[in-house]
């Protein structure tokens, strides 16, 4: 029988096909490589679109020639299994490889080869086509600390170092002290944090000059807002989740109303409310700082989301757990604290991590009330007449910053999930 499909190898003549196929694939990739890195095109004699598609066609033919279910060669088998199962996949594989080759040289040029980081003024960047990292270097302190006076940056640094140190206290609690670990993190730590930030960053006493919250900004403000948001929205969300599962109708309906209301409105309108509407609701002589109002708004808002996540965990617990706890004679609170919540919270670690990530990603929104953290500072730097036209660098810098923070958080949550996983 004559094999009609000449491009289909068999195990007997596979060696020949392998050599020809690899050569074709290599020619295709090499052609794109030359075009993108050295701007050389050897195929100008081919008409327009054929010239353009040549590497793709030749690569496809090559991949088709080496596709065999079992060849005996480990590398070829791996390629066939992973990136060359059928013609469609082979085409996508080639397109991805070619796009990567095409994108690398300009990106590399712009980001590194032709970029500048020297100098302290815009003039250093005028000469080159590449990115102007000088801009980031000059504005770095602003992106980190906002308009906080330069001389006092040590106060922010110290405050954060002390806060982190206090956060690790839990690790050193041994023996009897360990019973108080929840109490420490839930109640004592937030108070300590508030006191430190109030006295060290805000100042006004102990000989430290007072810095108004309008001057705070940059990444440190992102941390402060997210930090208090995280600490307070969690217990509030827990109470709301319990309330929504409560058997007492008044408490249940109030919780449902609260949760549905806050989940139904965008954060930006909540922030608007906190800045323009909330002062109307307070006695005219009362004054609440803008930052505190904003943080309170974020806490109230995110608590509703946390509540829904925790409710999912509560619902996932089998009824037997409740019954068992009750049959041991536990009251409501004892049952929730010692039996239900520990199990439910363990189940919803990924969901809570997602909510916390959302909170961190939502912090840039505080620009609507005139507070500028990293993204807000970028907008300020971008419109500075001395530094016009470097928006791209700023956004890339901030993207990497946020990406790193969020990625680290999600990895940590995955670690926690594994740590607290118990076989069921």
């Amino acid at each position, binding site marked *: 029988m004559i094999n009609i499909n000449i491009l289909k190898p068999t195990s007997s003549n596979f060696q020949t096909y392998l050599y020809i196929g690899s050569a074709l694939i290599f020619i295709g990739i090499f052609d794109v490589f030359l075009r993108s890195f050295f701007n050389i095109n050897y195929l100008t004699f081919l008409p327009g679109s054929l010239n353009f598609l040549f590497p793709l066609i030749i690569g496809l033919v090559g991949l088709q020639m080496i596709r065999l279910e079992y060849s005996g060669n480990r590398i070829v088998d791996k390629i066939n299994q992973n*990136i060359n199962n059928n013609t469609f996949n082979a085409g996508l594989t080639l397109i991805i490889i070619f796009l990567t080759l095409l994108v690398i040289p300009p990106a590399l040029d712009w980001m590194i080869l032709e970029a500048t980081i020297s100098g302290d003024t815009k003039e250093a960047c005028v000469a080159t086509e590449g990115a102007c990292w000088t801009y980031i270097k000059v504005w770095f302190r602003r992106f980190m600390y906002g308009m906080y006076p330069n001389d006092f940056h040590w106060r922010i640094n110290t405050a954060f170092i002390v806060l982190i140190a206090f956060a690790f206290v839990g690790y050193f609690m041994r023996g009897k002290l360990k019973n108080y670990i929840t109490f420490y993190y839930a109640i004592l730590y937030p108070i300590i944090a508030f006191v430190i930030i109030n006295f060290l960053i805000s100042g006004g006493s102990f000989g430290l000059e007072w810095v108004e919250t309008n001057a705070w900004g940059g990444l440190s403000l992102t941390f402060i807002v997210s930090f208090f948001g995280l600490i307070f929205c969690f217990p509030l969300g827990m109470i709301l989740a319990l309330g929504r599962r409560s058997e007492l109708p008044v408490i249940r309906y109030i919780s449902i109303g609260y949760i549905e209301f806050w989940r139904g*409105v965008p954060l930006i309108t909540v922030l*608007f409310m906190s800045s323009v509407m909330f002062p*109307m609701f307070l006695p*005219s002589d009362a004054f609440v700082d803008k930052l505190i109002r904003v943080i309170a708004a974020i806490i109230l808002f995110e608590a509703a989301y946390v509540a829904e996540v925790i409710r999912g965990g509560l619902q996932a617990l089998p009824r037997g757990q409740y019954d068992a706890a009750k049959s041991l004679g536990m009251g409501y609170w004892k049952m929730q604290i010692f039996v239900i919540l520990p199990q439910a919270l363990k189940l919803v670690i990924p969901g809570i991590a997602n909510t916390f990530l959302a909170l961190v*990603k939502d912090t840039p929104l505080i620009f609507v009330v005139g507070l500028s953290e990293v993204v807000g500072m970028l907008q300020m730097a971008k419109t500075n007449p001395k530094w016009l036209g470097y928006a791209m660098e700023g956004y890339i810098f901030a993207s990497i910053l946020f990406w790193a923070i969020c990625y680290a958080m999600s990895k940590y949550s995955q670690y926690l999930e594994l740590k607290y996983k118990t076989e069921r």
Partner: protein
Amino acid sequence: MNHKIKSIIPQLLTLLFVVAVIGFFTINAQLNMEERGIDFGYGFLNQESSFDVQFSLIEYDGSHSYAKAYLVGLLNTILVSVLGIIFCTIIGVIIGIARLSPNYLIRNTAAWYVEFFRNVPLLLQIFFWYYAALRALPLPENTEPLFGVTYLTVKGYYIPRLIWENFDILIYSILAAIISIVFIRNYARKLQEEKGQQLPVLLISAGLLLVFPAITFVTGMVQLEVALPVLKQLSKTSFIYAEGLSIPPELLALVLALSLYTATFVAECVRAGIQGISKGQKEAAASVGLTPNQILKLVIMPQALRIIIPPTTNQYLNLTKNSSLAAAIAYPDLVLVFAGTALMQTGRAIEIVSITMLTYLTLSLSISVLMNWYNKKIAIKEK
């Protein structure tokens, strides 16, 4: 008796607390408004707004009322949301399926896309598209056409405008097609349940959707003209494209950022849905003798959709709420027009912020109610 009191006391305390908080706020608000000489009321909605909006779907200028300005903002919000939902679904489904691809490169490219775009704040992405990416586009006079007749410039995206004659008849014909499709579907289901025969429903539906409008064209009841964008000189250095439809860069940036960001979440929902179907289902269907196409259509998809749709709707809701970030790049959505400009002019913080919040709340709650109803309908009925 003892038990009853035990359950009443906490409820009473909670109620008292809530009433006290609300009462405290109301009394303060009244005092504050008296002090400033503002009287609470929604009468201002009928007053002349006297501000212009850059981009509006309906006829509007400064001489119209605040209520009309509200409508303009609302329509713009809905426009962005609908466009965003369409694009994020398309991208999300593609990426979600790509994440399950047997191809190593595709799987990982999709994974990188998801990891990157969902870990960068949406606001930053909107700013990036608006201030960095779209600003790098050429001026109208230097623009090369894209797809022959459209022009992507720094001043917006110019596309041909379709001018319909008797557009309503076309709509009626499409409606008629949809109604007949519903009937045919019901008939096909009945046929399958009773006799086990299958009709090519999808083909018939597509055919009907084409044939009905085509008839209106052929008979000359509906006519279509296309107005291509033409370069027009406004002043010595300022050019625009006239005649065609212009999509402002704000809308472009917003839809791009919203759909690319939300697509990552939709992709995860799709992936979870497909992965959630156990292998046994597929094998069982195959052993009953269904073809691969039938397996996908009758066994896998109905079950996967049950997992996919609820979280995806949630993402659509999030997209709608996130579209309020439009205010940051001055796209005239509900928040910018109403909670921004109108609030500045009238100073009626409580009324305007409450209307804005209620609008979003109504939007969200109605979708939630719809979702719950749908969930109940498709839930597996266990015996």
